[in-house]
């Protein structure tokens, strides 16, 4: 049982670290990307009005 919890904890750590690093990589001020060019679903809803 204890091993299962430890494995789950480590898995969560890996997943959250990956998400955090990906977000930092994509959105940090150092990223020189000009912004998303493809219209999102919410933008689509707004554009209709």
């Amino acid at each position, binding site marked *: 049982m204890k091993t299962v919890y430890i494995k789950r904890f480590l898995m969560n750590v890996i997943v959250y670290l990956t998400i955090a690093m990906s*977000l930092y990589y994509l959105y940090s001020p150092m990223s020189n990307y000009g912004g998303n*060019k493809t219209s*999102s*679903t919410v933008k689509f809803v707004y554009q*209709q*009005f």
Partner: protein
Amino acid sequence: MYVAVLVVCKSILQESFYKYILALLNGLFLIVIYPNPIHFFLLVLYSYLLTFLCADVFKFKKKIWGILFLLLPMLLVKFDIRIHSYTGKLNDLISFAGLSYASFRIMGYYMDKAPKEKMADITSYFNFLSFTPTLLIGPIDKYSRFKISQDNGFTNINPENFIIGWNNLVKGIAFKYILAEAVDRYWLSKYDTQSKEFLPMVNNMYGYFVYLFFDFAGYSFMALGIGKMMGIHVPVNFTNPFLAVNPSDFWRRFHISLGDWLKEYFFTPLYLFFTRMKGLKPYPLLRQNASLFLTFLLMGCWNGFRFNYILSGSLFGLYSMIHNTYTVQCKKKGKDVFFGNMNPIAVRCISIFIMINLSALAVYIFSGRCHL
């Protein structure tokens, strides 16, 4: 912040106060952040009074009149109708972002309301229409389901639901802000949408399909997660659409709440209507196919009266008609008329492959990125 407010209120207030706190939070969001909040409040009042008049005062046996009046604001906006005495667009007076989703919920409530059923109280009705996480792009909930969640709102705010909600929220963030963003940045943006060459067109087609899924599913998972943390169960809207084996399976996996809504409130009544028509009685397949095609055509029109939306909806209608005819033929002949005795795993893989390509094509047309 919403969750924190509700957790604090849970410790000091009784269960019956949940809906009022939720109404305050929803109202606050509308007033502070939402564009055209007055339009939204007016629509809530208009639809509430109209539902009451049609269902409880006049007791219309045929619901079609009530439906037409309830959908009137959305129809006026979609058809871009103008009036002579007002020089601007009528849209500016009544429209707001999310009007379509609100109209779907309003119509669903009216259709579901039994003749002797007591009218919903205005606070619950307002919460149902304005629940912040699902306000703009759904999922489209049913009032009965929403009401059960709302009545146990404070009880639903517990550690188990918080963890489920948190996991969905994180999944939504990863889908929307990492995967959809990455698809846009490293795939779609590399190809010119105006190009008429084969390779850019193919990349735009598949890239946009994947992007749309991560973007839309991301929002839906975030809505589900936040809803769960706030004590409201929001229906699941996406379950692996890339594994769909046929058109009906695709709509059971992609934007599920819209597919369910169209099936329950448009396809089934339309099919029953065709069944009652004497001339169509001997042709069950024709009735089914006509109902399927018109349902998907409506879905296309709902996105807007533009050629690409209507063509995309018609294409999904055509896929469904072909698949329905194929299923009927298989049943008639007692064997698979297309795959024969092929290995079921191979059949499944081929079906998934065909469905991915067909749906990517329809979504590509919907996107307006292709040249028509």
